[in-house]
Each structure stands twice: as structure tokens, then as C-alpha cells.
């Protein structure tokens, strides 16, 4: 892409003109490429005055109460069971999550034990933990999310990565937007996940690792085999 093409893509992203694969590509660039993100911001700033021309419409207390209701007792970055149940069901249905085998009780115990172990071993203590399970229900990695929103991945099992391939970590926080890439790695190793530009993680948020071509998925969506996956749970 030439600089002009990149800036035009940033403009189209800021305007909201893009659909489908192009929209995904631009959203991914905005997350992973600081120059591109800056171009998008610059376009937003150029066009922001158009928002100011919209006629203000009384919003009223009823709408505020609905917002409050949705937030419930949610303390910053926390729980939203209603919305989550919906999202969780969507994950369940759309990805065939936990399909077939289901979650063996032993694996659940192991996940909990592993989570607690990691919890105890790390400072500061994570507020959310996801145990990522392989197809055969082995815990192969843990995702920790701290109170400050930072997230990291700790592998618990070595993964053979063929040459020319990488491990790509994904999270799904918005079904409409689809999975978002939060990390790339040549091999199974500790990894800080790039979640800065994403909404704070919530309970029952899906994390997964796929095998992708070097440099990461060319489409911005998981294309390779899912090696492991799991959803976040609140750490006690």
C-alpha cells in the first residue's frame, strides 16, 4: 500500500464506509499499527465538526436508567451478566464451543487448580483467568487479566509449531466485530497480550490460539486450526 492508499483506507475506516473483509482489515490495522491508528484519529478530528451539526435531541432520564440498568452493580471493568449470558450463548452456538466432548469434570478441576496456581504465583493478582483447553480437554495455557486491564498468556504445555507458522492468540468480545488478534508468537512462551485498544475483558470472554502463517493470519480472522480455547472466569 502506498502512503496515499493507507491514508485513504484510514479515512474510509474513520467514515465507516468499509464493509466485510476491508472493514476487518482496517480495524486490525488500527489496532496493530500506530501510524495507521494516528491517521484514523486525524481523520476523525477533521470530520468531527460534522457531528456537531446534528440536532440535539432530548435524551431523557428513561434512557439513562436503561444504561444504569445494563451496568447494574458493575464496578468499572466488571460484570454484566445479562449481556454476557447473551454473548456466551452466541459463542456457544456460533463456534460450536465445547462441542462434542463437553467439559470433563477432571479437566475443570485441573483448570481451576492451574488457575489458582498461577494466581498465587503472580503479582498483581489477576481479576480474570481463562484456562485454554485443547481438543482433548487438557489445559495448555492460562490467560490472566489484571485489575489494570493488562492481559498475559502463560503456556502450560509445549506446542510444536511447524516452521513458517506462528501461534496467534485471539479474543472474541463482540460477536458483531468477530475475533480480534491480541498476540503472535513463534513458540509457546509467556506473552503480553495486546488488549490496550479493546474494551476491558469481561467474564465469559473467549480466548483461543490458532496456528497461522508467519506474520499472522492474512485475513485478520483465524484461518488455521484452533489449538486451544477457553473463556474467562472471575478470580476469587
Amino acid at each position, binding site marked *: 500500500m502506498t502512503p496515499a492508499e493507507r491514508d485513504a483506507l484510514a479515512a474510509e475506516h474513520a467514515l465507516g464506509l468499509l464493509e466485510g473483509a476491508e472493514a476487518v482489515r482496517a480495524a486490525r490495522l488500527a489496532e496493530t499499527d500506530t501510524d495507521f491508528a494516528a491517521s484514523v484519529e486525524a481523520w476523525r478530528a477533521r470530520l468531527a465538526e*460534522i457531528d456537531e451539526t446534528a440536532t440535539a435531541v432530548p435524551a431523557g432520564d428513561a434512557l439513562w436508567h436503561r444504561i444504569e440498568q445494563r451496568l447494574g452493580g458493575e464496578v468499572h471493568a466488571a460484570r454484566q451478566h445479562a449481556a454476557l449470558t447473551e454473548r456466551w450463548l452466541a459463542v456457544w452456538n456460533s463456534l460450536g464451543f465445547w462441542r462434542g466432548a463437553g467439559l470433563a469434570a477432571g479437566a475443570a478441576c485441573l483448570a481451576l487448580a492451574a488457575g489458582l496456581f498461577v494466581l498465587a504465583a503472580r503479582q498483581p493478582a489477576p481479576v480474570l483467568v481463562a484456562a485454554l483447553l485443547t481438543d482433548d480437554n487438557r489445559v495448555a495455557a492460562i490467560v490472566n487479566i489484571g485489575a489494570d486491564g493488562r492481559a498475559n498468556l502463560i503456556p502450560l504445555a509445549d506446542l510444536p509449531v511447524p516452521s513458517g507458522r506462528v501461534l496467534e492468540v485471539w479474543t472474541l468480545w463482540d460477536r458483531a466485530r468477530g475475533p480480534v488478534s491480541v498476540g503472535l508468537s513463534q513458540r509457546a512462551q509467556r506473552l503480553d497480550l495486546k488488549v490496550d485498544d479493546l474494551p*476491558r475483558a469481561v467474564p465469559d470472554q473467549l480466548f483461543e490460539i490458532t496456528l497461522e502463517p508467519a506474520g499472522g493470519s492474512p485475513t485478520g480472522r483465524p484461518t488455521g486450526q484452533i489449538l486451544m480455547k477457553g473463556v474467562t472466569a472471575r478470580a476469587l
Partner: protein
Amino acid sequence: MHGVSDAARAALSVEETLRRVAGGDRGALRALYDAEAPRMLGVALRILRRRALAEEAVQDAFVQVWRNAGSFDPARGTGRAFLYAVLRYRALNILRAEARTDLNDAADHDVASEEEGPDAVVARLSEARALRRCLDGLDPHRRNAIVLAYAHGLSHGELAGRLGLPLGTVKSWLRRSLLALRECMS
């Protein structure tokens, strides 16, 4: 409410308010609602045209802001830009989802006929500012296309339909228009 007077809340900048929201201050979120929700509803209504959908977009936006105010980086843009980016993202998502299901096509057209045209939007922009000057300097069709895309959330495909031009033509034509606009504003 929440120990902060209306006057004091109004005086807070959007940036400062977002900082407080990021710290878990529900009163600050309410202050943001009081200050910005009417305009946000107007912006969403222009895109979605139906009140119920526009309210849904504003509601989603505030929930997102509550959860993500911490990701707002003052170095990257203004607080208001952050707020409206969240809102427009939600509104466009709802718009595209509605377009796919296409349940209320006829009703939408009724509202569409009353929609504020791009000329009216441009006329409301301050003549003292670069955006107005530079939009005025563009060919009217190009100007209208940019304003329709931004204010009403039209996609490339919808613009092509409206202008009666092939999709590829509209894309490259709009790109050139946007780059000309940037040139003029720099």
C-alpha cells in the same frame, strides 16, 4: 447527585470526565450523559433514522465508554472524538445489521424522505473553519458523497446506488475526494 453540583459537572472537560469514568465514577458517567447524550442521540438518529435504534446506539455507547474509558488516550485525540468514534461505530454496526435483515424497508423510506440533505449539513458548519472552506471548495457531488457517508452512514455500495455509478468508480472517486480534502485542510 453524587455530591457534584450541576454547574461543577458542566464545567468538567470531556477528557477529565473520561478520566473519572475510567476510575469507576458513575457520577462522571452521568455528567457525560447529561452533557453529550442529546447531541449523541442526534448523531445516531441521523444515521439510524429510527428513535428506538438511535437510543440503542447511545445506550451501547455509554456502556462501552463505562467499560473502556481507561483505553482513552488523550495523546491520540480529544475526549469528544473518542466518544463519537464509539457512538458511530455502534450506530454503523446497528445500521449494517438492520440493512441485512431489512425488516422495515418501507418505514425507513418514509423517514428517509425527511432526512436532512448534505447541503443542509454543510450549511451548518462554521464558515470560519477549514472543514467548511475545504468542503465548499470540492465539486458538489464529491462534497455530498463525503457528507452523506459521514453524517448518514452510507456505505460505498449505498453511495453507488444513490449516485447511479458503478461501485468501483465510486470507491476511487471518493478516495480522490478525501485526499483532496486532506490536502486542503493541511
